[in-house]
């Protein structure tokens, strides 16, 4: 059994990166592997917004990530600096910056690149999408 860390660099819509990453993560967990965390960097942070509203007959990858996190207790970690530059804001950053809205709820944690690096250090293999 292996210990993976997953990095997602593509957005929820407009690229297949996120769906591929989600399916890989699901398959890893189903096969008994460990997933240290899923780290969202670059445009990957767009996966954490609650304001994605895909049409009712379309697959909702954001919901997929939330369900995976709830089911398997896998942490979904955003790079906070990548997120803030892209308008991806949690309640805490909204309060700190005087914003009246935010779009990231508790399924996604805001973290730093340090969490990616320490994750890489503790995992057997990093898989990037």
């Amino acid at each position, binding site marked *: 059994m292996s210990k993976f860390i997953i*990095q997602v660099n593509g957005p929820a819509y407009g690229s297949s990166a996120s769906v591929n990453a989600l399916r890989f993560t699901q398959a890893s967990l189903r096969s008994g592997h460990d997933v240290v965390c899923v780290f969202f*960097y*670059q445009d990957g942070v767009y996966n954490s917004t609650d304001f994605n509203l895909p049409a009712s007959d379309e697959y909702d990858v954001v919901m997929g990530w939330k369900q995976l996190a709830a089911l398997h207790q896998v942490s979904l970690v955003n790079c906070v*600096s*990548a997120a803030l*530059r892209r308008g991806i804001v949690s309640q805490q950053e909204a309060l700190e910056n005087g914003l009246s809205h935010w779009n990231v709820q508790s399924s996604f944690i805001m973290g*730093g*690149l*340090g969490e*990616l*690096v*320490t994750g*890489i*250090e503790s995992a057997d*293999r*990093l898989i*990037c999408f």
Partner: protein
Amino acid sequence: MKKICILFRSAPHGTTKGREALDLALLSASFEQEVSVVFIDEGVLHLLKDQQPELIGGKDYLATLKALPLYDIETVFACKQSLGDYGLSHGLLSIPVTILNDEAISAHLKLVDEVLVF
């Protein structure tokens, strides 16, 4: 400690890939990882000196390339073929790099633990 290789494959300024690659390279080094950096394909355009990204609304993150030695990132490779493709001779480069052919880069990638492509 792991051997982490950050591979720059995209041109600067048109996307933020290069900037976020450099952020990760420096941060990994500050977390005591053994970091190497490789410039290949359009990524070699990061090395062209005297760029002024502020003129097109960008940030001059290329200036930070000069900080690589301060972070103990001493392994900086550029692809010989790609430099030739973009007409980048030694005198046009902003920082000292070791110029390698495809085989040598490939051999380096086999030596490291993880390769992150930007």
